[in-house]
């Protein structure tokens, strides 16, 4: 669990759930999507070791849209994927990484609470409370 401070200086807890590759492998698509959406609606951040397939990501967006509404206090989610390979290299590495069917480390959190910052040596995920 990570702690951030809100505008009043009071610590706000952000729960981060790590879901390993072996667990993901044994889950059906709808199980993964439900896990993600339920967690994010609960203001948690989900880290998937292996990420989702393109079809799963499409279905995740589709189902997320069905959950959005002011009455549910839910406006969607933020997805950040981190290539294992350097994705902003030269032409060849870009083609290789875009064709790389292996899932990428993926962080999914509530909308507007997750941001990626890229520095020279690393990528940072910033989670707002």
């Amino acid at each position, binding site marked *: 669990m990570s702690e951030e401070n809100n505008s009043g200086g009071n610590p706000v807890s952000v729960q981060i759930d790590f879901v390993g590759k072996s667990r993901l492998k044994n889950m059906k698509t709808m199980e993964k999507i439900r896990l993600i959406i339920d967690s994010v609606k609960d203001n948690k951040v989900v880290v998937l070791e292996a990420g989702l397939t393109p079809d799963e990501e*499409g279905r995740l*967006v*589709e189902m997320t849209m069905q959950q959005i509404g002011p009455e549910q206090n839910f406006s969607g989610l933020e*997805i950040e*994927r981190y290539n294992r390979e350097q994705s902003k290299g030269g032409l060849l590495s870009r083609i290789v990484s875009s*064709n790389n069917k292996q899932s990428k480390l993926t962080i999914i959190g509530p909308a507007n609470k997750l941001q990626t910052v890229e520095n020279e040596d690393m990528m940072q995920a910033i989670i707002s409370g």
Partner: protein
Amino acid sequence: MSYLKSWKRRFVNLFDVFGGEEAPESIGVYGPPNSGKTTLTNQIIQDCTEAEDKDDLMGSSSEVPHETRKAKKQEDITIEHNNEEIALSIIDTPGVDTQVDYEDFIEFDIDEDEAVDRSREATEGIAEAMHWLRGDVDGVIYMMDSTKDPFTQVNTMILGIIESQDIPALILANKIDLEESSVDRIRNAFPQYDVVPVSALQGDNMDEVYKSISENFG
């Protein structure tokens, strides 16, 4: 399931080669909100159909995100190139995003009740657009705003889905009339796609767009 649809698409194409009747291709225009999808489809309708007045156009465009909230199909579009004609249907889709907040509409002086309605319509439209990507479009024109960083999670995700479904696709780098435009930035981000510069608003380079549509989807 996606590989079955990919093989179905290949089978249909093979049938066409041996003289089967060709059905007009359904080409979906996808992209993030405010990338110019509706502006492009309106331009195509004006150029390639008998449309004479604004009532025949696909819809209105504005700076308010999610102006298009429901997918709309225009049939009977004929694109001519090199003395050949191809018949298409064009589907203008809502801008895809992973989040829709009704408060964003309020910032554009839209009252709260209407903002909530727009937000609900936008989410329904996006869900429908994502569903159509799984087998209801034969090709995709992907619109990007060339003044913005193309390497976004939504762009990567949608193009990844398109690639996994084996759907032929073409990227249009829109808004080249603006000073901040950088087409090369899009080409570098997605080198595996044809990237055609265009200003859908001004109608600049539409000949190249029609040529690419003909080559990619004909």
